[in-house]
């Protein structure tokens, strides 16, 4: 168990810089999920922590000790790879015992630890098998077991669930979370799947093009996204973005789609006429059958999900809007009266950064 601290991590491959200065402090026992689109530098960051890549600049500290220049072997970490990376010529037992043998543990201790981990992961009967005799899910468990027996300071996971089928993925996800809580090992988990990120992480690092766009708890990332990228990445269906301009001396927004409405949480800084982006999640769009203050949504696609319906359509001004409504409302071609309550708005600048309400005297 340990803390992890990254400061100013930059990494270039040749001329291209793929990480542009990552800062992160991980508390003892915390589970951090690094989430972002494919190619944004998640694996590179994890590999730098593991010591498989050297950062171009910046430092990695584990338990306060600078390990930036240390070999992977000297960092006391364990890693679970996307393709599991089991040793194909060794049995499950040997796979799990390999790291312990290298550390020169007595055989009695090795057997004990492997047996414990195998029981925890329910792979006891498989110990004599070779990796090729295992299913994907079993290999995944062995890879986890190999990490657990080491009792390392840090667990690193690089998309360990992405090669599993959907059902197994959900099951393993819960299992990893339970194990991590039980063992209390500080962990860094990389994924491109926002659901995995939301359910697994104590905190998320949302990465975008080699930068940490936001580091916060899952609910905060969902509720108060730092920019339009994070807002669009987390949540499904994705948040709607509507063009608007600042009006009423900063007190409200004139939507391109129609009405001018006051902000619910106070005025924004800036000149009237400044371009804005108003974000609203599909689940916050309201169906207003009585029509008062409603905008007409011309429905062009209906996706029934059972208890809810996802409706795609266009508002006036050719603004695209997706709504998630509780009942099977709307049909293709119909015009649906919808409301966009300002209390559910996320206000962003035209460049995409969140615009918080101007600090006002407490009421």
């Amino acid at each position, binding site marked *: 168990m340990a803390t992890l601290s990254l400061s100013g991590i930059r990494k270039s491959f040749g001329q291209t810089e793929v990480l542009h200065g990552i800062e992160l402090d991980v508390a003892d026992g915390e589970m951090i999920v690094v989430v972002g689109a494919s190619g944004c530098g998640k694996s590179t960051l994890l590999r730098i922590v593991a*010591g*498989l890549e050297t950062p171009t600049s910046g430092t990695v500290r584990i338990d306060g000790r600078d390990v930036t220049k240390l070999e992977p*072997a000297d960092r006391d970490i364990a*890693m679970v790879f996307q393709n599991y990376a089991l040793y194909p*010529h060794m049995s499950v037992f040997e796979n799990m015992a390999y790291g312990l043998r*290298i550390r020169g543990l007595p055989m009695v201790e090795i057997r004990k630890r492997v047996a414990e981990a195998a029981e925890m992961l329910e792979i006891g009967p498989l110990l004599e098998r070779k990796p090729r005799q295992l299913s994907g899910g079993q290999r995944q468990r062995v890879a986890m077991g190999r990490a657990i027996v080491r009792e390392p300071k840090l667990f690193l996971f690089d998309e360990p669930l992405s090669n599993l089928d959907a059902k197994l993925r959900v099951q393993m996800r819960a299992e990893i979370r339970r194990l991590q809580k039980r063992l209390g090992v500080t962990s860094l988990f990389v994924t491109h799947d926002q659901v995995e990120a939301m359910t697994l992480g104590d905190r998320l690092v949302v990465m975008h093009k080699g930068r940490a766009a936001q580091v916060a708890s899952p609910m905060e990332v969902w509720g108060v996204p730092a920019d339009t990228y994070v807002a669009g990445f987390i949540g499904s269906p994705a948040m709607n973005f509507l063009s608007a301009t600042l009006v009423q001396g900063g007190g409200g927004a004139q939507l391109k789609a129609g009405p001018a409405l006051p902000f619910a949480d106070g005025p924004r800084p800036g000149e009237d006429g400044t371009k804005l982006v108003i974000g609203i999640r599909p689940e916050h769009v309201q169906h207003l059958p009585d029509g008062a203050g409603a905008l007409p949504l011309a429905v062009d696609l209906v996706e029934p999900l059972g208890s809810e319906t996802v409706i795609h359509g266009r508002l006036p001004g050719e603004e695209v809007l997706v709504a998630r409504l509780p009942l099977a409302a709307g049909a293709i071609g119909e015009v649906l009266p919808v409301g966009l309550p300002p209390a559910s708005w996320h206000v962003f600048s035209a460049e995409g950064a969140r615009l918080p309400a101007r600090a006002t005297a407490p009421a």
Partner: protein
Amino acid sequence: MRKKVIFKGVALPYLLLLPQLIITGIFFFWPAGQAIYGSFLREDAFGLSREFVGFENFADILADPNYLNAVSNTVIFSSAVAFSALGVALFLAVQADKAIRGADFYKTMLIWPYAIAPAIAAVLWLFLFHPQIGLFGRFLNGIGIPWDYKLNGGQAMLMVIIAAAWKQVSYNFIFFLAGLQSIPRSVLEAAAIDGARPARRFWTVIFPLLAPTSFFLLVVNLVYAFFDTFGTIHALTRGGPGQSTTTLIYKVYVDGVENLNFGASAAQSVILMALVIALTAIQFRFIERKVHY
């Protein structure tokens, strides 16, 4: 994936196979049959008559100290060639696998020796090892180490081993490199994270994963050293000095072509044929099983 092509009837497939069958028949089965037949015959001193002598030719050669000397030469020569060619190739392949800059150049250079004809290679080696005009030969004699492979049997053996092994290194190198490149990077990274240093990673992960390749190459190299090194030996030492570099295959040639002792030569050929069939069978069995780990 296997594709099965279905022909109607049996005539067409046999017709298509015919050229191959004829070639195999004329150039392999017929001479092989002749050798087996010849191994049971003995000619008189003038080559005028032949008589059937049963296994006498075999009994004679197995009791012949010269033949036993050739057996021991072959064992020494073949194992030395196979192990040094494998060892050097593995070392070079590991280096090439690590190389990032100039890797292609390096690989190309290493593959070249395979394309050089034995006679030309032999001339190159003579330029190096000739006691008077060779680079190494003169150097060794210059620093007081007497070097003359024409007089010293051990030195002659060393030279043919080096020359034969050198030629096989390229072939082994290609296979080892392919084997190394098929080991997933992440497996080696997992070992590094598990705490294994490079040497340990090599012996506990890379080497075992190369075992199937190594075994295949061992058989290929032994077959090469047994049967395919006649040209190298002939060009460098002609089996000498004395009979110190006469291997089994070389002795077949000496007895049959130079001494015109066809019965003995045929019996030796039959023994070698049995050997090559055994080695090939081992290899086929192994490849068929496709067991990797």
